[in-house]
C-alpha cells in the first residue's frame, strides 16, 4: 500500500480563537500570538509539502475495483457478473468516492445509492471485501486489492448495488419507533425531561442510520424472514429504555419484541455488532431486552 498514514504533527492542535486574547498579546514585540502564527504558517507549509509528496506518490496509482453488475431490464446484464474498474487513487479516497469516479468517468449505468457521503443518511451500505460496510466510511487504503463491491447479502438485488430495502423498513416500523407517551407535563411550555443517566443509557441506540448492514450480516435474519432483526430490536430498545414513557407503554413494547420472531431468535453471533458503522452495541441491547422481557413475565407470578 502506498498510502501513507499521516502522523498528526505534535503541535497542530486546533488553536483557540484568538480574538479574545489578541489585545493583551499584541503589546509584546514577539508576542505568543505572533510566535503561534509563525508556527502555524510553518506547519501549514510542512503539511502542504507532505500532502504534495503523498499526492506525487499516489500519482499513477490506481485501485482495482470489482463491482457486481446486474440489471433484469438490460439484455446483456441479466446474467450477474463482475466488472473491473481501475480508478486513480487519491489521498483519503473512500469506496464510495471510487464508485462515483467509476460511474462518472467510465460507465454511467453503474447504479448505487448514496447521498450524504458522511455516514449519516445510511443509503450506501455495500458488501465490500466480504463484510457489510458503508461505502462512504470505508477508506480504500485499509482494504486489500482488488476491492470487491457487492450489494448487501440477504436482500434481493434490484440493480447493480441497489437492494430492495422494503422488508427492512417494514421490520423497523413494526416495533413502533415513535414516542407514545400520552401524559404530558402540565403547562404550555413544560418540557419532558430526561435524566442525564438515561440519556447516556440510550445514547448509542439513537445513532442508527437505517443502513441495513446489521440485518444483512445476520444469519438468523437470513433464515427467518419474520425475525425483527438487530436494527429493529435496537429501535425498540431505544424507546423501551427511555424513562419518559410510562411503564404500560414499556410493557407494550416488550410484548412486541418477545414474540416468536423477536429477541429470542438472536443466538449472539455478534455479526451485527461487528458490522454496524455507527458502533452500536446491538447484541448487548438485544440481550438486555431479553432480560427485561424475562423480568416482566416473572412479575406476574
Amino acid at each position, binding site marked *: 500500500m502506498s498510502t501513507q498514514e499521516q502522523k498528526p504533527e505534535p503541535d497542530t492542535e486546533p488553536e483557540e480563537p484568538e480574538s479574545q486574547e489578541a489585545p493583551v498579546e499584541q503589546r509584546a514585540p514577539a508576542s505568543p500570538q505572533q510566535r503561534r502564527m509563525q508556527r502555524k504558517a510553518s506547519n501549514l507549509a510542512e503539511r502542504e509539502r507532505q500532502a504534495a509528496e503523498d499526492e506525487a506518490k499516489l500519482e499513477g496509482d490506481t485501485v482495482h475495483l470489482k463491482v457486481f453488475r446486474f440489471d433484469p431490464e438490460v439484455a446483456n446484464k441479466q446474467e450477474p457478473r463482475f466488472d473491473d474498474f481501475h480508478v486513480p487513487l487519491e489521498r483519503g479516497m473512500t469506496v464510495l468516492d471510487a464508485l462515483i469516479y467509476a460511474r462518472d468517468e467510465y460507465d454511467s449505468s453503474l447504479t448505487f445509492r448514496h447521498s450524504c457521503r458522511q455516514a449519516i443518511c445510511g443509503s450506501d451500505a455495500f458488501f465490500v471485501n466480504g463484510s457489510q460496510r458503508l461505502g462512504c466510511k470505508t477508506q480504500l487504503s485499509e482494504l486489500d486489492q482488488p476491492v470487491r463491491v457487492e450489494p448487501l447479502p440477504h436482500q434481493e438485488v434490484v440493480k447493480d448495488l441497489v437492494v430492495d430495502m422494503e422488508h427492512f423498513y417494514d421490520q423497523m416500523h413494526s416495533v413502533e419507533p415513535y414516542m407514545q407517551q400520552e401524559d404530558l407535563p402540565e403547562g404550555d411550555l413544560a418540557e419532558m425531561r430526561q435524566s442525564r443517566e438515561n440519556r447516556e443509557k440510550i445514547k448509542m441506540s439513537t445513532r442508527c442510520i437505517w443502513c441495513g448492514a446489521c440485518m444483512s450480516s445476520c444469519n438468523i435474519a437470513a433464515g427467518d424472514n419474520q425475525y425483527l432483526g438487530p436494527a429493529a430490536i435496537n429501535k425498540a430498545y431505544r424507546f423501551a429504555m427511555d424513562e419518559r414513557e410510562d411503564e404500560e407503554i414499556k410493557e407494550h413494547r416488550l410484548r412486541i419484541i418477545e414474540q416468536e420472531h423477536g429477541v429470542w431468535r438472536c443466538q449472539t453471533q455478534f*455479526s451485527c455488532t461487528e458490522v454496524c458503522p455507527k458502533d452500536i452495541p446491538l*447484541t448487548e441491547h438485544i440481550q438486555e431486552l431479553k*432480560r427485561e422481557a424475562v423480568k416482566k413475565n416473572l412479575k406476574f407470578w
Partner: protein
Amino acid sequence: MSQSYNRGLIEDFGRWKEFSAGMWAWIFHKFTGWVLIGYLFTHIAVLSSALAGPEAYTETLQGLEALFVVRLLEVGLLAVAVFHILNGIRLLMVDLGIGLDAQDKSFYLSLLITGAIAVASVPTFMTDVGF
C-alpha cells in the same frame, strides 16, 4: 421494479473465510453440541453391552480400548466437551450481559484452553495402546 435477483444460499456458506469470532463460536458450539449428542447414543450402546453379563461388558471395553482410532476419538471427544463447556460459560456471561466487549477474546481463550487440555490429555489416553 419488475424483477429482482436472489443470490440464495451461497451467501451463507460461500463466505466462511470472512466469518468473525462470534460467528465461529456459534458454529463450533452447534457442531460440538451435535457431536456430544451423537456420543451420547454410542455411549449408551456401549454401556448396554453390560446387559449380556459382566464378561461381555469387559470384553467390549477392552476390545474398543485396544484400538488406536478409539483412543484418538477419545481425545477428540474430550476436546469437544471442553470447548462446549467453556463456550457455554462464555454464552452464559453473554446472556447475563457481562463482558460483551470481550466476547471475541473469550472465544479465543476457550479455544486455547481446549487445545491445551487436549494436548495435556494425550499421555493419559495413549498409554498401552495397541496398533
